[in-house]
């Protein structure tokens, strides 16, 4: 089982789309850095994450959310984790695939 990390904004880069085309059912998605903009609700790209949530868990790095002023704007169902939670996820999953 793979943890996929995405660190680019979905408006700027195709990383998230490519990741979600490949991400296996049962894997998980971890949004970090500018990747966290994908977790904002009701945007042009939020349907990507809404759809992803029907088949996989989606985690977002809370320090990156707070940094960018996005705390009140998130898609329901995404899970906030800190750096320690991010570390734990990399133990739960067998490998990490980074999309950048």
């Amino acid at each position, binding site marked *: 089982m793979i943890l996929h990390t995405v660190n680019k904004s979905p408006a700027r880069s195709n990383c998230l789309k490519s990741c979600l085309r490949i991400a296996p059912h049962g894997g998980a998605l971890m949004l970090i850095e500018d990747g966290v903009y994908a977790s904002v609700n009701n945007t042009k790209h939020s349907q990507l994450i809404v759809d992803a949530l029907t088949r996989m868990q989606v985690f977002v790095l809370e*320090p990156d959310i707070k940094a960018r002023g996005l705390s009140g704007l998130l898609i329901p169902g995404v899970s906030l984790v800190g750096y320690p939670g991010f570390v734990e996820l990399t133990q739960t999953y067998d490998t*990490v695939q980074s999309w*950048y």
Partner: protein
Amino acid sequence: MKYTLAIYGAPYSSQAPQTALSFAKSLLESGHSIYRLFFYMDGVHNASAIAVPPQDEVNIPAEWSALIRKYDLDAVVCIAAALRRGIIDKTEAERYEVSAHNFAEGFTLSGLGQLVDAGIASDRLITFGP
């Protein structure tokens, strides 16, 4: 678990070094170990000994050096990526007869084989892209 972290981004141009530093501190504090830090592509600039960020900004190369010292980490900088980008140690500076060296303490210049070796020897390899 034994981790290897591969850092591909430069300080101040990419958030990757900051994310990798915070990730590294978290995993070391929770009792896991780091088999190797591998600095590649623009990540080689993390090993600059002569970066002078403003005093009110985090000094990322200095933070790496402190972390490496505290936990006695193996921190390898890809030699091919570093030399073409102007990161060079004393030995290589003498070999290539360039006027100065700028390689920070605690890091080691070595080949890409050290990344593949680290992938084999570690339980987890995490890439922090630029």
